[in-house]
């Protein structure tokens, strides 16, 4: 069963917390992974791989560069999840 947007944001918050140590409550839709959440380009790959597994979605490398904010990622996963 597909995840709701809320569930996706919650899941992303847990992933970012695990990888970057940012409190889950600080992982909001408008936050930039790079500028606000201490997720550099290498750690972003980890976030993407963890999200792929959790939400049964494929996020090609070419699309990752468009995922600037948590909201971008949540929308992408919502549209493309299996």
């Amino acid at each position, binding site marked *: 069963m597909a995840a709701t947007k809320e569930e996706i944001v919650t899941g992303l918050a847990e992933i970012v917390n695990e*990888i970057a*140590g940012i409190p889950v409550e600080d992982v909001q839709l408008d936050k930039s992974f790079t500028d606000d959440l201490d997720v550099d380009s290498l*750690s972003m790959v980890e976030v993407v791989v963890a999200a792929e597994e959790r939400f049964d979605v494929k996020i090609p490398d070419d699309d990752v560069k468009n995922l600037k904010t948590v909201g971008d990622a949540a929308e992408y996963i919502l549209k493309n999840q299996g």
Partner: protein
Amino acid sequence: MSPTNRTVVVTGIGATTPLGGDSASTWEGLMAGRSGVKPLDGERFADLPVRIAAVAAVDPGDVLPRPLARKLDRSAQFALIAAREAWADAGYTGKAGEAGTVRPERLGSVIASGIGGVTTLLDQYDVLKEKGVRRVSPHTVPMLMPNGPAANVGLEVNAQAGVHTPVSACASGAEAIGYAVEMIRTGRADVVVAGGTEAAIHPLPIAAFANMMAMSKSNDEPEKASRPYDTGRDGFVLGEGAGVVVLESAEHAAARGARVYCEVVGQGLSADSHHIAQPEPTGRGIAAAMQNLLDSTDLKPAEIVHLNAHATSTPQGDIAEIKALRKVLGDDLDHVAISATKSMTGHLLGGAGGIETVATVLALHHRTAPPTINVENLDEAVEADVVRDKPRPLPEGPIAAINNSFGFGGHNVVLAFRTV
């Protein structure tokens, strides 16, 4: 004074070792004559001929925040912990460039290891085989590269004069400190964070070293396995951890009113060119390194009262070192109190030169030579004054001490320190 002969001093020390999570607890362990060697539990070690090691007393994962630790190889974790301690111990707060500290372009980082991020490499190969390409960590390369610890320490303190990683197997840590001394002497830097680190307690390195017949197989008595100079010695015990010092030009240290532990008199280097892994049995290369030290500095054999020996507890190597010392120092070897601290810490490979420099600096500072434990029957070929079982006071007045480190490949590094 020209930039090529500036005096270099030690202003900070840090360590995380099998005896303790910092330099103070490590020194306490050395003074108490405590062995850091333990049985290796767990299924993955069960089939190995060697099932003992000197595991770090404090796990770095319990010290560093998890988001940071997961991006660092264990060797870089040790290095960062030891470097932070040394940096603070030297009286620095914050990164270079902040108020009251050294300028970034005058600060270096030189941290070495013998075999780099070997556990990261092996663990990620397991991930590749078991979970597939996509799951291989994007941090793998920065974690496994041998310069990772130096680079991460450099980032921590904002070192911009240069970040370097000399690699010479078990002499790497000492070579790093020697390289750092030259950076300051030649005017490239005013302050350098330098040392050695190693984290190789994994079935593959253990199997490989064991198959070289280099390791002790005294699995039943772990705390007695590392026994340099004893007739029953049967190889080294692998250890892990890091030792780091802050080196500084004497002028820079004086200008900021820093506490100075001792002077770094200099170093002597040579290569055996004998065999890729066997020590040269007469100690020819070691003697050459010692002689180079005496020829290139104002150090006098009469000043030398303490030696932290390389002495890994191998049958040949321990004796070759003693022969070399006698050849170069002659009767002056008789007033040198020799300590083989690997009897307690195990052999940290590239980390050895780091933690043994810390031990040597503290021996001068406290005027006390650490003991060598487990010498039940002294090998008669060891015609020298080994400090056994209990610490020994060192003389008053100006004194000097030496730290020896040798590595597979025939690398010989001799570092000398003197009270100020």
